[in-house]
């Protein structure tokens, strides 16, 4: 479909994943802020049902890439194809309603709210009862609230955070906050889940838990996941395919073991000058 992806210097995609349908394609995207280039001519795809890792040294443009995907930044050049349709310029909340959810590098929970309310907030888009019914509470609004509460409770159960259900999130330790944030994103029942360094600042045990949750999410719900992560061990374990960025450019793309062996990647991580 597109010539960019088949250029020779890129490692080829492993067969089983390659046969899957594209969920999202990024073609020749460039992004700059007032002349400073954050992303230069990047193309890659995310297939339905896979776990796609985006890695690269600090400042490689990984988070900017996520921001482009969920509509927070608008690239000056290039197209984004979402579920087969070229996407127009849009707002972040529109991305949300199309099924893109994410977590943040620095936990971005609603600090004044409890774990339960935070995860409930992920259901916002799916709740429809209007102001009048909300005001009345008893009746349709409450029914709707309870219907979604059930979904949220399933997520709480899934993430094993029953004990902190009614704790204000500000009081939780960092690792649990990250878990709640994942829960909040899951509550959106997204088609694509973007995780920005889901394991940053965690200890070994928490990392193991989080890895398990990510894999479970992928397997249980079939959610496609794109994640940024620094811990190479985790990336290798979790991801089906890896795209490597450096200085806003793509330097490798393919299954983890191939990418790990790529000279360009080794150079980038060792800091060989360009």
């Amino acid at each position, binding site marked *: 479909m597109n010539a960019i992806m088949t250029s020779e210097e890129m490692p080829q995609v492993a067969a089983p994943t390659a046969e899957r349908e594209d969920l999202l394609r990024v073609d020749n995207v460039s992004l700059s802020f*007032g002349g400073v280039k954050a992303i230069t001519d990047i193309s890659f795809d995310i297939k339905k049902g896979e776990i796609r890792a985006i890695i690269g040294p600090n400042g490689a443009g990984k*988070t900017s890439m*996520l*921001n482009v995907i969920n509509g*927070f930044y608008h690239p000056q050049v290039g197209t984004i194809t979402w579920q087969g349709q070229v996407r127009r310029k849009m707002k972040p909340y529109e991305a949300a309603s199309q099924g893109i959810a994410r977590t*943040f*590098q620095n936990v971005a929970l609603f600090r004044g709210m409890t774990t339960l309310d935070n995860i409930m907030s992920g259901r916002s888009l799916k709740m429809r009862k209007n102001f009048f019914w909300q005001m009345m509470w008893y009746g349709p609004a409450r029914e709707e609230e309870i219907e979604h509460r059930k979904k949220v409770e399933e997520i709480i159960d899934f993430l094993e955070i029953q004990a902190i259900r009614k704790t204000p999130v500000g009081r939780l330790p960092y690792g649990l906050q990250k878990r709640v944030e994942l829960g909040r994103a899951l509550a959106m029942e997204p088609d694509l889940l973007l995780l920005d360094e889901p394991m940053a600042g965690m200890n070994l045990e928490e990392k193991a838990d989080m890895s398990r949750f990510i894999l479970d999410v992928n397997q249980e719900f079939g959610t496609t996941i794109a994640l940024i992560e620094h811990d190479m061990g985790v990336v290798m374990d979790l991801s089906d395919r890896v795209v490597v960025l450096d200085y806003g450019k793509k330097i490798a793309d393919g299954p983890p073991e191939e990418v790990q062996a790529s000279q360009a990647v080794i150079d980038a991580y060792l800091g060989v000058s360009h």
Partner: protein
Amino acid sequence: MLYDIFIDPFVQMVTMPDFFLQVLWEGFVTGILYALIALGFVLIFKASGVFNFAQGIMVVFAGLTLVGLHEHGIPAYLALLLTIVVMGILAYGIERVVMRPLVNQPDIILLMATIGLTYFLVGFGEFVFGGEPKQMIAEQLGLPTGSTAFEMGERGLVILQHIDIAAALIAIIMVTALAIFFNKTRIGRALRAVADDHQAALSVGISLNQIWAIVWFAAGLVALATGIMWGARSDVSFALEIVAFKALPVLILGGFTSIPGAIIGGLIIGFGEKIGEIYWGGLVGGGIESWLAYIIALIFLLFRPQGLFGEKIIERV
């Protein structure tokens, strides 16, 4: 109607340039006074991040103290000196009682505290000096009172009050002095360090508390100057408090931390308000001075949310 809005005012400006110049002068003087009030805000905001709503009442309070002391038979210059001392005590008190315990609280709490301070000073001022407007002792302080008329050839004349000229001069001196203070003195540099980074300031051995007391004192001095000038033009009364709200649009235009911004913002608002009131106000019944400044700031905000001198904000996730 359209004619009244878009053509007639300009025709008037051209056909009656003397009147127009007079309006501009009025706008200039008002603007200077706004700028002075805004300056007080900026001083405090820069050093402590506090938006000091009490600046308006400090102006009134300074003016009242000065006049009140004089009424009790103290000579004008001594009264002035004493007032400065009072402002110093006030600054120290505010730092000790209000600012220090509230350090690190969210902006809105600090803002509220300064409004509480306003209440307190209103009550205190009225309790001590009574609630009636007072005449400023401009003459006793040696401020000029007369006026000079400038003829404009055939086209009429512009009358300049000497007190206004003095106000402008004092404002200019004040700003220059502050600029020197900030750039050349040790304390001034410390102040700037605080504005940039509290930790850094602490690490060079400057006490944050001292600095806050100093800026509040500096703001008190600015308030005193403002009080004298404004008082000399009208009266010293609590109505001045409302005027202080005008500092907000001024700051929006000029930025919360910029001294030149405060001056330029003050002038823009001063000019805009007067011209708007004289040439367009009549169309809607007059009195638009009370809100025009905010609308100007608002429109400005919608197009340049970062202010005149701010940089474009890139939001990060």
